[in-house]
């Protein structure tokens, strides 16, 4: 087990318009040691996350509040008003929320729907009724995203202090054309694709790493993880 896992309870925001389903998902999550907030619509979910329909960033930016707020969002697909897919899109379009893992639930097993959600950035797709065994799939997504978040903070710190690398490794230039970022979780290297459209708006934050830098990155993460 990596030191990435802490004793903190992770907080999941569950979105479902059906009352019995909300009760069920809440119980499933609590039984699996998550902190839970349930809402009955996509718009309420966005409100809870500090986002409003016409914006992609919160009115009042309380980064700490957002960090503490939600570690994963699990949402029903079929909902009146804003569907789970539309909610997913809004989350992924928001620079503040896009790194929060999103899981879609649906009672219908439609491959094109599943693919569309995964392509839009959903981390997982659960077929309803959701079971206790599905809950074990959630934590890895949370840990992966926290790991990535920590890496981003480290990168920013290093760049703002003009530190190239802790080992003074001459590892070549950062290529902005690379669309892959490697995250280290439990010693495994996981690939996490970055959506190209964010490259322009996010500056250094979204620049990808070439393979030549992966060694430096791994050393950074290991230094933090142990």
């Amino acid at each position, binding site marked *: 087990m990596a030191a990435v896992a802490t004793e903190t309870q992770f907080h999941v925001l569950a979105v479902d318009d*059906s009352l*019995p*389903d909300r*009760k*069920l998902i809440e*119980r499933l999550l609590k039984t699996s040691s998550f902190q839970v907030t349930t809402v009955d619509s996509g718009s309420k979910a966005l409100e809870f996350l500090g986002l409003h329909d016409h914006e992609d960033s919160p009115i009042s930016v309380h980064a700490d509040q957002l960090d503490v707020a939600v570690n994963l969002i699990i949402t029903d697909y*079929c909902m009146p008003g804003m569907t789970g897919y539309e909610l997913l899109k809004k989350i992924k379009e928001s620079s503040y929320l896009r790194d929060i893992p999103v899981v879609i639930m649906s*009672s219908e097993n439609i491959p094109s729907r599943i693919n569309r959600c995964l392509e839009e950035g959903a981390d997982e797709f659960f077929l*309803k009724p959701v079971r*206790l065994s599905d809950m074990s799939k959630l934590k890895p997504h949370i840990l992966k995203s926290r790991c990535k978040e920590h890496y981003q903070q480290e990168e920013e710190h290093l760049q703002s202090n003009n530190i190239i690398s802790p080992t003074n490794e001459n590892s070549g230039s950062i290529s902005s054309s690379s669309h892959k970022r490697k995250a280290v979780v439990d010693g495994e290297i996981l690939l996490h694709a970055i959506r190209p459209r964010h490259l322009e708006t996010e500056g250094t934050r979204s620049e990808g790493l070439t393979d030549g830098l992966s060694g430096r990155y791994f050393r950074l993460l290991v230094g933090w993880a142990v």
Partner: protein
Amino acid sequence: MEYSNLRRQTIFMKKNLFDQGFLDEQFNQLEELQDESSPNFVEEVVDLFFKDSSRLLTNIEQAIDKYPQDFYRLDSLVHQFKGSGSSIGALRVKNECSVFKAHCNDRSLEGCRRSFQKIKREHATLKQKLESYFQLLRQVGPREHAVSSRK
């Protein structure tokens, strides 16, 4: 003596509900989620289902009687009903909802009407059977603790 009799009755009742297709595996899943921290979980979810479903059934009935028929909306309402039914393991209800949806797809109003009557019947039957089941469980419940504390 009386306790073990009641206990046997609940087991028998539950077995019947499964054998007759009223409930499926999902109901077992619900029971597994019940423990000391949430001792009435199953009954609570089931109650929520019946509260929610009454509302849905009314909406479906109104939608059926509306002219011109909006099969898209009908399908959507029954889809919701089917979804929550499946969450509590209501197998017969779920299956009849599938039949209804097929009629919506065929744009058969008559088919929808017939199917809706069946849904209402299955819904009412399940409600009554589960009420009896939970009533029996409640009688067994406290004694279960008493028995285990004597050990």
